């Protein structure tokens, strides 16, 4: 798994590629803890994430709580269909705003 920080309009974009599971999720969590700037909305770009385990999904929730505390918007971008399905049946989906691509984020 690779994580990098990019930007799109006024959004800070965390771009993830590769599988997010218990083996890799620590890196993602560290990245979120250390790299996020205050006061700027956050997009998590997941187009190149084929699979996300239970631990991965839980980190998304942690991120959601964190952005809520920061008072900024959070968007998930390019969530694979199977991941979206798992998120729907387990109740994770309802906590997120999800876009097909960075360009479809309004404003």
């Amino acid at each position, binding site marked *: 798994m690779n994580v990098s920080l990019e930007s799109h309009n006024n959004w800070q974009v965390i771009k993830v590629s590769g599988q997010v*599971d218990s083996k890799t999720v620590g890196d993602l969590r560290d990245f979120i803890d250390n790299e996020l700037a205050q006061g700027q909305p956050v997009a998590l770009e997941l187009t190149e994430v084929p699979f996300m*385990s239970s631990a991965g999904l*839980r980190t998304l929730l942690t991120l959601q709580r964190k952005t809520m505390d920061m008072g900024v918007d959070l968007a998930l971008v390019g969530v694979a269909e199977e991941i979206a*399905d*798992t998120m729907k049946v*387990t109740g994770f989906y309802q*906590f997120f705003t999800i876009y097909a691509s960075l360009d479809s984020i309004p404003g």
Partner: protein
Amino acid sequence: MDLERIDNLPTETIQGFRVRPGKPLPFGVSSVPGGLNFSVYTSAGTSCTLVLYSRSEEKPLAEIKVPDYYRIGDVYSIVVYDLDYEDVEYGFRIDGPFDPEQGHRFNQDNILMDPYARCLSGRDVWGVEPDWSNPYQYRSRIAFDDFDWEGDSPLEINDADLVIYELHVRSFTKSETSDVKFKGTYAGITEKIPYLKSLGVNAVELMPIFEFDEFENSRIHPDTGERLYNYWGYSTVAFFAPKAGFAASGKFGMQVDEFKQLVKELHKAGIEVILDVVFNHTAEGNELGPSISFKGLDNKIYYMLTPEGYYFNFSGTGNTLNCNNPVVRNLVLDCLRYWSAEYHIDGFRFDLASILGRDPWGAPLSNPPLLESLAFDPILSSCKLIAEAWDAGGLYQVGTFPAFGRWSEWNGKYRDTLRRFLKGDEGQVGEMAQRVQGSPDLYQWNGRSPATSINFVTCHDGFTLADLVSYNEKHNEANGEYNRDGGDDNHSWNCGAEGWTEDEWIRSLRLKQSMNAIGILMTSRGTPMLLMGDEFGRSQHGNNNAYCIDSPISWVDWSLLDSNQALFAFTQKIIDFRHKHPCLRVNQFDHPGSKHLPSCSFHGTTPWQVNWSNDSRQLAWLMSCNMDDNQDQLDAVYVATNTAHYATWFDLPGLPQEYCWHLRFNTGDINNPAQDSPSEFQDPGILVGERSIVVFSASLRET
């Protein structure tokens, strides 16, 4: 102050894993800073080895022999650090004597599942044949239990106000016709919540969802070649784990979250969740069955054994869990507390509950400690406790189940009486009168209430409603036992032809009989329960014991919702009627009634006079109370039933002069049985058609 605790630090390294002595409570796995605490009980075992696996690997990651000084009493506990919670699977090897005559069946070669495992792998996707060569089949995993309930808690609906809907998780939406995305799963039920809400039920009772193995005793049908399963799942493998194969996300090990999401969404819709739980026996069978967990941990403690060391079989399935042993009793309590606290479950229905009241040698106890503990438990205090008040060892306790003021019962007598009454058997009027008022003959003498009685005409066991009116005999050939299995005491009537028929008259009569059954059920006091699909005529083609069938025979066919719209609409309306009329839900045998009318009175073709004779087939009841929101206003419902094969005139009982009767339902007119805009009924009585029921409600006269 953030003090670092020194007991968070490992004390030694075993097999490359940093460990320390654990804490014996709670049993199973709990998370501690930096590690996991494992705790397991064995009274006669002589050593314990924790076996760790990486997910799905056949070979263990490590085997950590728990040092003897980590044991306190009969409990081994150890903290292991640095484990990958999501990836790790674990089990135990327990050494000890193999001496079946003394009750001991220890075998160091077996890897045993944690009896407190909250999540299991090994049967992740329904119907995928397991690799039987794998020595560890049912693999304990760690559950996160960090679900975001967002303020949800159990609904605590009054028992008397419930309308229960019994369903099998897979059968409910497995069919293509279900029109849901996640067929046959917990998520599939979530998708059907709008339907359940429109039907008007406010509780679902789920057939077993504790992890079971559909491949247990699985076999191939000798004639059709179809695979037969342990489909219903009345055979628990893991009491603390939801069945993964019922979860769309089971392949990712997320069944815990998916099931919680189902409960949360049902609660949002005002629907309670009752679990059908099986504590009378386990999936380990008798001496020929597999050693999954209890057998190898402490056989003699967990099972009822004969003096020769064989298994008592009060459950009819091989073994009997020794529920009144204090250790087993605590396991059952821990289990139910867990489901109540962690899953927000609203109630439990106990399969063959009478077994839970037997002592370790099988004799019925007058004051069974387990039933008492459950009744007075602080966490379970608002949970519904429902007993199937009989067992396969001949104990039948409907009306005498040790209730401690808390337990209600599946009222098998209600079912049998209603069935006999419906088909016009002789001598039923007297008993039917007991049943519709909540069975005071069974429950009043011991200080219980009408809602003690779970009323039903069908349940998973036996015919569906459509089959009850279409078959005289069971037709269980699909079960592969030459029609020998299943009950013969069905009290069913096919209305003139066995099974499917083109005869319009017979079809109409069947529809009417179905409406009559649901109509009486919904106008009886007590708690009504419907079986999934009965509201639109679900059939199992005469199979009254589809416990092994995973096919369209057992799946709900949702296309019937269109073709049997009339029955569905009738059911929906009469459930709504029940919710609107408190007099049908009075939960007191000595209720004073309303200002003008007694709480419950019986009538015949002439008001206040019932023909109680053997050949009588006419019975009417009038229920009354004051309206909840306006004590000066009367609520009254009058139901007249005629199960004779000829029409019969019933004079209507009088009402205070400011009230009049409105005719609400008349199954004599099956095309239009419900009056959507009722008006004042002008006649002094009504001709009730052959095998028909009518329902009236009292309304203030329009001035």
